[in-house]
């Protein structure tokens, strides 16, 4: 769906998506990094399990919810990546304690 434009000179930041290494860039939000990864990063909703991807990218739609460093239901479009960040795509409701 998306690719990075050619002249992006920002530093590469390695993150992990469901355990797989992904090269993000410094300043990317989690959602942007996921889009750029080319991976299938569709989450499943907590209500019906329908597949979703981020819709608004500005913190209002909550379709970017993702588990970040073990914490569920975070808004991926608001959180910047950091080296070594562990991201898990959520399938349905989050688990208690995560």
């Amino acid at each position: 769906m998306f690719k990075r434009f050619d002249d992006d000179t920002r530093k590469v930041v390695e993150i992990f998506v469901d355990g797989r290494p992904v090269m993000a860039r410094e300043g990317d939000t989690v959602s942007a990094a996921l889009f750029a990864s080319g991976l299938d990063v569709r989450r499943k909703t907590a209500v019906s399990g329908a597949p979703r991807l981020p819709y608004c990218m500005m913190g209002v739609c909550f379709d970017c919810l993702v588990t970040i460093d073990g914490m569920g239901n975070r808004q991926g479009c608001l959180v910047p990546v950091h080296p070594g960040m562990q991201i898990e795509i959520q399938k349905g409701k989050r688990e208690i304690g995560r």
Partner: protein
Amino acid sequence: MPNSYDIAVIGGGLLGSAIAWGLGRIGQRVCVLDEGDIAKRASRANFALVWVQSKGLGMPAYTGWTMQASDTWPKLAAELLDQTGLDVCFQRNGGFHLALGEEELEQRSALLKRLHNQPGAVDYKMEILGREQVARMLPHIGPEVSGGSFCPYDGHVNSLRTFRALHTGMAKFGVDYRPEHPVSDIKYVQGEFRLASPNGEIRAGKIVLAAGNANQTLAPMVGLEAPMGPTRGQIVVTERTMPFLPHPLTTVRQTDEGTVMIGDSKEDMLDDTVLNLPISSVMADRAQRMFPLLGRLNVVRSWSGIRVMPKDGFPIYDQSETCPGAFVTCCHSGVTLASNHAFEIAPMVAAGALDKKKLGAFSATRFQKSDVRTSGYY
């Protein structure tokens, strides 16, 4: 829509809806008059427990009435499912009141003792469990939980879906639900009630006042009384999470949808448009101490609501001597008692008289005595 009915129910919350549904079920021509989009609505702000334990201190009849409701809730849930296809997710596998620290547990034990010592009350098998026993049934409790009380008859339900099922069912029974008809005046003329509302007059042979705290002003118009002592409660709700809590608590429960509801507070305030955040904080803190894993969940909503609360905390069911056919009904536990309202109160209203043997204790005439004690709600 017509403007004349056998029976007009004033109030479209859970109490009024359950009675109206019960009346429709036995073929009465009924309308329900309700307010509009913004109103003080306990039925949409409640905690959705079908609750037995700790009910009835000071009025033994209330324990029996509550037990009966708990016993007949499965029938209500089944009939609603059958009629509307809506599963209200009634669950009755026992509920807890958890104590943090020894002092709270002692207080709870003392309450239990007072309940047990009441002559004439139905035994609902409420018992005190120690920390280890609780932990076996609620594996996620935190270290501060000292124990709690448990009652096998306690349960909960999806109250919004119950509300929707009752309204869907009412429509199927031909009950006319008429929102934006707040009743401002009631006149009893030649055996008929005339109800004034901004959207026109409605006439009915009988009326049931089920308008919550507004019953206080409506009841005297038909020779009844309903002294109320409303309080404000707040609730905090989290996002949906995987099932983790197998039993409901008085203050924490997980809904069938996965959200976790956290209550409950009680304030002498009647403004439901503002929140008292220190209270939300106390509730959140206690919930987190009961279940530390809750701390990581996101709170997505919170609200305050005004409880419908008769002055002594117990239900009022009464009928007018001066205006025959006028009934007043108000109670706090509109979810718990919904089955009674549908299966017991409705037929009595249809027949024109409340059963004194069953409901005599709930007559508002009790307020004419000077020694009314307040203890119905914990």
